């Protein structure tokens, strides 16, 4: 296949960009419709309490108000639980509008529909919600304690998930054991576009729904289920979507309610979150407490890992199982860890529900391991690079069955490490660090490494290709890109393999009325799954074309070849050839094929990221000086798009390491509800990233691709965290939880501890 795919590997410009650049692209908030009504949600301002009453009469009577609904007026099924296929646990259900009890600040309690947005906003303030406050529990460890306030009394515990992996005795035979207690903090995804949805009744009894979503087919199924309609009577469209990072992959109460309102009222309804609402209602990411012990021999060879990972679920066991499960699967990372004893627990607390956010469990597992490698190196007085080298899986060990049950496809982890060290100039930086430590300078230098492997591209995806008699090529994908440039990637694959100009190819996606089936874009899956589905469909189209050409050229199909210009001819007779469009015309219609590409065990991208920081030990301010990222995502279709994904992921990893944390007060009131209080980095905080790559194709798909959407966030956070700790090591600091904000760093300098514990506030 490789020789025919001439366009693969080129930095083709994105076809998606012009409408986005000129402001003509339409996001949910830009959709208008005559008679559009506006929905505004009334949200709980109490973190935990019994819902006594919701008084709506005053609001309903206000001018411009069309209707007000509570859970009892708008009965909808609970949100689908993840993972699918497991029997739903009714007592843990997440309602669309709260019933009987509220469990976090921001939970939707009622919805007001107005003929204008301001009428709905004013009326929402007039809805009186009477809540009898209950004791709150915010910390996942507190939630698991005896006599903790229960969010679901019928369930009898705040522990909603528990899974054991491996067997006891993982540390047996160790000559040295290092221990850590880490908190991977809760962060907010903050896509620039908040959530939003619009819906209206369409012809033929169909309900048309528009949502800022990563997975329109999943949303269609949920809307059909909630409204008790056949799926064919629901159309879901993801218009331009302003970023998702996993957080828009799930189904939200507000989306189902908006659809229900349009159905009930028979009119167009739109709901758009404000940023303040987004910070409460959109899932948060991370939020994992880790109690870890790593056993090794004196030469640095790892013997086994024993760990407990407590993943916060927030108020509902809704999408939190994604990071819960992924951190479990990736618990031993790129290392040869023969024995694993892992307890994974999911705990509910009175906070915004947790969900997948770029990395979704992978950054948690990676940070845990990379911190442990550093602690082990410190304990054995070895360079941590050496400890990594001794334990990284070798290329000959693939496919590798990890103790978690994961099956790694391919890799050369040491090569990525070596390349990153070379790009950095590791020895020089260490020499500079030694000089700095000799001087009396208050600004310390730190180097941090993270070597990682992650999982991408599980499941299946739909793809179709159609060559029209007019010469245009239509590609259909079941994925739902929202910034990744997938349409361009698929165009390259189709145009390259068909040998037609890029300008003839158009990609249809994100509309369940135009694409027969699909899954969506999350988990670094779309390039490889949609890409291979399209590639397979193209192969079928080429085969059909060859057969058609054989008939037209009166030759045996085996003698027909595709020429460099894309046309078909009998081998050795290039002067008489037929183009694809011509073949379609002669066939009397388009030449098309479709394919569902499945890859159940996924692929395993990997890399090494290295950070260099300077730490002002007097103020605690950390400056990131350099960030080297060597990533391996198998075969690269478009290097510009791949680099863009790495840049974005790295930026979010840095952001977690240095800047971001969702905070609550002791009553469960959120303190980070806008972009001033939740300050994610601007261009002024980022250095220029130094990228490198290795290319180890995956044997699990014909194009040899792996995902690249999340690697950046997986490696960079741990690298920066390690760099900060490294800078502070002269002060006896062995560990520091993220984010390394000035105060936390300053306190570490002054209260440096040698026992591997964060000097303060380990989990809140």
């Amino acid at each position, binding site marked *: 296949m490789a020789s025919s795919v001439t366009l693969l590997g080129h930095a083709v410009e994105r076809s998606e960009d012009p409408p986005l650049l000129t402001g003509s692209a339409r996001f949910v908030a830009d959709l208008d419709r005559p008679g559009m009504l506006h929905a505004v949600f009334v949200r709980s301002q109490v973190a935990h309490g019994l819902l006594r009453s919701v008084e709506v009469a005053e609001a309903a009577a206000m001018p411009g108000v069309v209707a007000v609904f509570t859970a009892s007026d708008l009965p909808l099924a609970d949100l689908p639980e993840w993972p699918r296929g497991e029997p739903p646990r009714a007592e843990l259900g997440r309602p669309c509008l709260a019933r009987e009890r509220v469990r976090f600040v921001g939970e939707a309690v009622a919805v007001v529909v107005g003929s204008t947005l301001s009428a709905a*906003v004013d009326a929402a*303030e007039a809805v009186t919600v009477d809540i009898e406050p209950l004791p709150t529990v915010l910390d996942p460890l507190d939630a698991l304690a005896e006599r903790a306030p229960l969010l679901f009394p019928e369930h009898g515990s705040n522990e909603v998930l528990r899974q054991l992996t491996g067997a006891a005795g993982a540390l047996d035979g160790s000559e040295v054991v290092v221990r850590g207690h880490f908190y991977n903090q809760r962060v907010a995804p903050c896509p620039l576009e908040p959530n939003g949805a619009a819906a209206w009744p369409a012809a033929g009894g169909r309900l048309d729904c528009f949502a800022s979503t990563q997975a329109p087919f999943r949303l269609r199924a949920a809307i059909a289920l909630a409204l008790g309609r056949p799926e064919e009577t629901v159309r879901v469209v993801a218009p331009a979507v302003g970023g998702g990072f996993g957080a828009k992959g799930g189904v939200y109460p507000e989306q189902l309610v908006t659809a229900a309102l349009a159905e009930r009222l028979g009119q167009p309804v739109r709901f758009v979150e404000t940023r*303040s609402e987004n910070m409460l209602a959109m899932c948060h990411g991370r939020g994992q407490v880790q109690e870890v012990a790593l056993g090794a021999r004196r030469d640095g060879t790892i013997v086994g890992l024993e760990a407990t990972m407590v993943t916060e679920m927030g108020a509902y066991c809704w999408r939190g199982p994604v990071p819960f499960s992924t951190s479990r699967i990736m618990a031993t990372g790129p290392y040869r860890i023969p024995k694993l004893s892992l307890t994974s627990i999911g705990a509910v607390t009175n906070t915004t529900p947790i969900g997948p956010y770029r990395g979704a469990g992978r950054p948690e597992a990676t940070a845990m391991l990379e911190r442990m490698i550093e602690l082990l190196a410190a304990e054995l007085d070895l360079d941590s690079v050496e400890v990594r080298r001794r334990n990284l899986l070798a290329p000959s060990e693939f496919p590798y069955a990890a103790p978690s049950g994961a099956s790694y496809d391919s890799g050369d982890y040491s090569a990525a490490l070596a390349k990153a060290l070379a790009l950095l100039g590791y020895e020089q930086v260490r020499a500079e660090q030694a000089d700095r430590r000799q001087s009396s300078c208050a600004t310390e230098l730190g180097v941090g490494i993270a070597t990682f492997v992650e999982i991408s591209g599980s499941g299946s995806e739909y793809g179709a290709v159609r060559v029209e008699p007019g010469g245009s090529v239509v590609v259909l994908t079941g994925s739902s890109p929202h910034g990744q440039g997938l349409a361009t990637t698929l165009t390259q694959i189709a145009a390259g393999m068909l040998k037609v100009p890029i300008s003839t190819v158009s990609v249809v996606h994100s509309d369940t009325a135009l694409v027969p089936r699909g899954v969506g874009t999350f988990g670094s899956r779309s390039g490889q799954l949609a890409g291979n589905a399209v590639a397979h469909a193209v192969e079928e189209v080429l085969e059909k074309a060859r057969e058609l050409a054989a008939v037209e050229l009166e030759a045996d199909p085996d003698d027909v070849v595709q020429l460099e210009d894309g046309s078909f001819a009998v081998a050795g007779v290039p002067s008489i050839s037929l183009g694809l469009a011509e073949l379609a015309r002669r066939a009397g219609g388009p030449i098309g094929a479709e394919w569902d590409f499945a890859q159940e065990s996924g692929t395993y991208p990997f890399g090494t990221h290295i950070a260099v920081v300077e730490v002002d030990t*007097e*103020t*605690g*301010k950390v400056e990131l000086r350099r960030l080297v990222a060597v990533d391996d995502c198998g075969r690269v279709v478009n290097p510009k798009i791949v680099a863009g994904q790495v840049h974005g992921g790295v930026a979010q990893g840095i952001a977690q390491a240095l*800047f971001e944390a969702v*905070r609550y*007060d002791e009553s469960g009131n959120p*303190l*980070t509800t*806008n972009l*001033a*209080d939740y*300050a994610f*980095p*601007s*261009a*002024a*905080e980022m250095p220029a990233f130094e990228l490198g790559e290795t290319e180890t194709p995956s044997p699990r798909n014909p194009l040899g691709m792996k995902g690249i959407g999340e690697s950046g966030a997986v490696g960079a956070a741990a690298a920066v965290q390690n760099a900060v700790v490294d800078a502070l090591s002269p002060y006896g600091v062995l560990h520091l939880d993220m984010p390394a*904000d*000035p*105060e936390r760093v*300053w*306190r570490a300098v002054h209260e440096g501890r040698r026992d591997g514990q964060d000097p303060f506030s380990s989990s809140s």
Partner: protein
Amino acid sequence: MLVPASLDELLASVAADTRADLIAGGTDLMVEVNFGRRSPESVISVALVPELKSWYRSGDEVILNAALTYSEMMRPPLCELLPALAQAARTVGSPQIRNAGTIGGNLATASPAGDTLPVLAALEATVVLESAEGGRAVPVGEFIVSVKRTSLAPGEIIRSVRVPARRAAQEFLKVGTRNAMVIAVCSVALVADAERREVHLGLGSVGPVPLRAPRAEELATSLFDWDEGVPRASEKELARLAELASEAARPIDDHRSTARYRRHAVGVCARRAFERARLPDATGRRSVTP
């Protein structure tokens, strides 16, 4: 909703509707309105009042009119006359915010984290207030009375701010979590006035109002070499200066930081501001700060 086109019109409007909110750059008021925290009965915009724009020199003073924007504070020659104010302005928000936000707005909002306020405190600025009845001048320390509260009377507007334009070393330092667009965890403004031979320190975000640090100022004044225009202090004296500045702080715990850290960091900033201070020569040229 009124948009007066002259100072007289503005004063008449304010006198006629003393409950109206004044809006200049909108960087504070519009946030409140957008977030539904405030629904003012009426609003008077100062955007088109020419008398409130720009700045000028008057004797040994600089008069900063109330609608002077942060961006304007950063431009020469004003940034050379008042470098600490320019440095503070540079740390305010983004270019968009600096283009809109004004010194009058910063004063009227009187947030403990208002970035220009410690500079105005260190400069011992005077706030000039005006109403239809007449005007009065109030020292900045009396103008801001507590958190987000000022001594502005009904019917009064902030007309301008008067600051000395004497030969002085000026520094501004701020600690926050981001480099750009960050709300101060603490800030320090230093003015070493060559004519009065006094060092003044203004501390921001470490009290309900911008604070001065009299004991630290006294020490700094004694440690400054006024003839050479540079600080002369031993490590021990610098540490003492930081300690005295910290002692002057009255910080609180909030979600951005703890009082303990703020107290420490404000001392570090004071010490560093002092170490960096260099008097300009008679022509106004400054030696390079290390």
